[in-house]
């Protein structure tokens, strides 16, 4: 089961690089959706790997994660992309190839970092820590190198995916209320942010955050 788990985590890391290198926003949304849904599967694998069927709470949390990250949130994002009727290209500050290289370097860095920090002995799938760090870094790269409001939201989602993956190491420590609360926060957050991006689009006739420069000293 650990091999299967590691395979999924490697796919998650490869999806990071795809997200960095893709120019159509709709495709990036789809990539991040697949990544989110895959992450929802991880807790189930961890449980089967540890022997014994997962409890109702674990099943519910995993189901909610897959539904939200894989379906509901991408649907919201696609809607605001449609209603914005903007040029559906990413328009990055840093070109696609350099940002993929940056992401790859970040992934390598994450591997070195987690190796040096030391990891818990009793954990299955030791790739989780570096993969989570790498995903967080890629989220940051997207957040800081893209101009469009919606692209920055995608960066935030990738960042969240990375943190969610790290949470997998702590399934027994996180109370059910907290896990569901975090997912609800994420969902409402994307919902509220997408309302604001729509307002940006109406008020400024674009989603380019470079237009948001009125407020400064």
């Amino acid at each position: 089961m650990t091999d299967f788990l590691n395979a999924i985590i490697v796919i998650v890391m490869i999806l990071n690089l795809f997200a960095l290198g893709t120019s159509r926003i709709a495709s990036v949304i789809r990539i991040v959706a697949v990544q989110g849904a895959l992450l929802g599967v991880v807790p189930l694998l961890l449980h089967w790997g540890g022997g014994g069927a997962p409890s109702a709470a674990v099943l519910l949390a995993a189901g909610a994660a897959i539904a939200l990250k894989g379906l509901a949130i991408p649907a919201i994002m696609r809607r605001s992309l449609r209603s914005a009727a903007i040029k559906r290209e990413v328009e990055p500050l840093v070109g696609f190839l350099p940002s993929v290289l940056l992401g790859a370097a970040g992934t390598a860095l994450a591997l070195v970092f987690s190796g040096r920090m030391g990891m818990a002995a009793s954990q299955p799938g030791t790739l989780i820590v570096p993969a989570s760090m790498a995903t967080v870094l890629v989220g940051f790269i997207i957040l800081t190198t893209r101009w469009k409001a919606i692209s920055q939201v995608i960066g935030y989602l990738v960042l969240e995916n990375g943190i969610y993956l790290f949470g997998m190491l702590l399934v027994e420590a996180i109370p059910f209320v907290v896990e569901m609360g975090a997912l609800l926060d994420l969902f409402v957050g994307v919902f509220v942010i997408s309302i604001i991006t729509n307002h940006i689009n109406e008020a400024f006739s674009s989603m380019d955050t470079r237009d948001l420069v009125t407020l400064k000293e």
Partner: protein
Amino acid sequence: MALAMILLPLLLAAVGALIPSNRLRPLVLPVAGLGHLALTAFALLAPGADSLSALPGEYPLLGLDAIGKVILLVVSLVFAACSIYAVGYLRYRQERPNRVFIAGLLGFLAGATVVSWSRNMGLTWVAIEATTLATAPLIYFNNSKRSIEATWKFLLVGSVGIALALLGTFFVAYATLVGGGQASLSFDALCVIGAPVSKPWLRVAFVLALVGYGTKMGLAPMHTWKPDAYGEAPGVVGAVFAGGVTSIAFLAFLRFYIVVSRAGEAAFASRLLLGMGLFSMAVAGLFMIGQRDFKRMLAYSSVEHMGILMIGLGLGAPALFGTMLHVLTNGVTKGVLFLSAGNIHRAYASKNIAQVRGALRRLPLSGGLFLAAFLAITGSPPFGPFVSEFSILNGAFASGHPLVAAAFLVFLFVVFIGMGRTVLKVTQGRPPEDALTTAYRDGFLTAAPLVALMAITLFLGIAVPEPLAALLREAAALVGGQA
């Protein structure tokens, strides 16, 4: 008890959403605010009301300790004042629909209550993030291009910052796992002294929490959303932010600090906090000099006072009583400042000192309170912040940090000069000939809450009542590791 305090605002938010009249709806706010204040008084005073029985062998999810009580008191006091003020304010703003605004305010109150009661670092995070989302529509209330920009910056910077705090929270739990212990997010479990823990993971966790919750508090250099949000949002929202949102973020961060210092890393934490605190004060002072927008000026004052809290925490035991008192005095005084600034803004239809002059003549009460609250917040006797700032300064000498004390004094002086110039321009002189005349005059609803908060500020400067002093001592001992 806890559930009643959390559900009351949520219930009233639902009631408010069902009331069709834009005029009557704001009345749910004082019901929630005063009801919450009464419940807070009960939770603080009645013996046994502060704890929830946990299942045997498990750590409780909710329970009110001394630091939670201090924060709950600040939030509840400031919110109660704001809830009465908001009725008067929304009467002047009938043209804007207020359904979402009221739901957002009440949602914040519920979230802040959860943070105060939470004994689980994960639950704390969930509630803080919930308040971020609940307060975003408040900034957006004026529905202008500028308010959209401010809301966007607040949401993006705030969400990313708070995401880092979640990563930090996970790191703390993972640090115990790497150390060979049982992973847990429970504050009580993490505070057990001598528990095995991985120091490198704990240090990274602390830095992430400092950046994450520091963003929410508005410490420099993560403060960039603050002047925009405070400048564009209504004054009452500024009061809720500067008195409430920043205080609960400070509480969330305090819990990290306690966990890290119990693990023997207090020296590491202290260096970071002193650096961060002094930097925030310096940045705030720099941007306050020559500030022409008096609401943005207040935002920088908030940055400054978050820096002061960090310094107090970094100085350790001798300054902790002053730090806990400062959370209270700063929150209450900021309430007066933002609410009176809101009144002045409305009377002149401008927040730029080019148009706003002679507020003492046009609005004697609000103008006078604005001036008095400025004197209070900059640490002039006989007001509350003087006592808390002086106590922190004493702590700096007592803990052997004379250089920190010197820098602290210099920055306080710079802020006094910078802020004073703007405040005096606003209040003194005559209103310009071409100033717009507006319908706003100070009324009972938009003035009485300010007078009440100002009275508390003054009272705390003259004498800290013994039950409160005992609570603050208990809180300081909890933070300092003697309890």
